[in-house]
C-alpha cells in the first residue's frame, strides 16, 4: 500500500452530533478505522480455506449469518458461501493483505482491499436492540440473534452488514460510505426518544 494522506471518515461531519448524543440505555459512536479485505475462495478448496485460516489465526466461518473472531482480534464475517469480509486494525492492514496474498498465490482466489468503501457505526447498550428494531425486519431477539451473529440486510432501507459483538448488546454496523451519514442521522433520530428528560 503506497503512502497516502490519512483517510478522512465520511462521518467526520457528524462527529459533534455523535459525541454529544446522550440517551438512556444506548450509546452510538463511529467505529474505529478498520482494514477490510474482501476474500473469495472456492468453497470446495479445503487447502486454500485452511491456508487462509492459518494466516488469519482462526478458521473462516462456514455457517451463514455468523462471524468469527481470531486470536489477534481480526473479525471474519461470512458474506456468502465463498465470500468473507476480513476486518482488522488499520495498522494490520497492508501486512495482512501481503501475507494472505503470498499464502494463496497460485490458488483460485480473489482478495480485494475494500477498507475505504465502508464506514462503521458502533451501537451498544440494553436498548440498542430496540433502536435497531425500528428499521430492521429481521428477528433480533437473543434467541435468534446472539453475539457472533452477522447478517447482511437492510436497516432503514440502507444495505448494511450487522454484526453483534457482545451481550450488552453491542452491534457493529458496516455501511457503505455514501449511506453512512444518512444511516447515522437516522440512528440519532431513532435514539432521540431515549434522551434523558
Amino acid at each position: 500500500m503506497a503512502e497516502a494522506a490519512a483517510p478522512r471518515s465520511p462521518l467526520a461531519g457528524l462527529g459533534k452530533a455523535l459525541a454529544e448524543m446522550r440517551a438512556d440505555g444506548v450509546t452510538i459512536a463511529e467505529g474505529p478505522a478498520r482494514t477490510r479485505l474482501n476474500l473469495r475462495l472456492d468453497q470446495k478448496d479445503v487447502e486454500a480455506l485452511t491456508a487462509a485460516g492459518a494466516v488469519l489465526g482462526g478458521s473462516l466461518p462456514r455457517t451463514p449469518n455468523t462471524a468469527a473472531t481470531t486470536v489477534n482480534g481480526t473479525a471474519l464475517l461470512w458474506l456468502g458461501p465463498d465470500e468473507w469480509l476480513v476486518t482488522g486494525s488499520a495498522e494490520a492492514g497492508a501486512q495482512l493483505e501481503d501475507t494472505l496474498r503470498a499464502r494463496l498465490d497460485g490458488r483460485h482466489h480473489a482478495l480485494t482491499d475494500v477498507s475505504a468503501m465502508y464506514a462503521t457505526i458502533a451501537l451498544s447498550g440494553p436498548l440498542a436492540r430496540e433502536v435497531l428494531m425500528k428499521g430492521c425486519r429481521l428477528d433480533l431477539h437473543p434467541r435468534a440473534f446472539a453475539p457472533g451473529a452477522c447478517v447482511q440486510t437492510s436497516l432503514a432501507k440502507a444495505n448494511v452488514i450487522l454484526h453483534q459483538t457482545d451481550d450488552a448488546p453491542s452491534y457493529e454496523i458496516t455501511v457503505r460510505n455514501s449511506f453512512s451519514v444518512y444511516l447515522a442521522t437516522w440512528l440519532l433520530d431513532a435514539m432521540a426518544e431515549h434522551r434523558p428528560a
Partner: protein
Amino acid sequence: MLWIDCPWCGARPETEFRYGGEAHIARPDPATTDDAGWADYLFMRSNPKGVHAERWMHREGCRRWFNALRDTVSNDVLTIYPMGTARPDAPGDEAGGG
C-alpha cells in the same frame, strides 16, 4: 410481505431480493436460429396462472442467485432449488416440465 427462504441466509423479506424473470429459458444458438425463434427466446414467457418457475437473487444479503417455484395465484413460494438443476415437482404443479 412475502418471505422468501434464501438457500443460504434463511427466511428474509421479499424486499431484500431481486426478481430475475422466468427460469429455465435456454439461449438458442444465434447462428442456427431464425428470427422467429430468436424473438421467442427474447420475448415470449409462459405467464401461467399457478406454479411458476422463476429466478431470484438475494440482493441485500449473500447476492446469490437461485430458482424458486411460486404459485402466482396465492403468491406462496413452494420450493427453492439451485440454478442449473431441473425443475422439481411441486404440490399441485400441473404445468410440469420447464
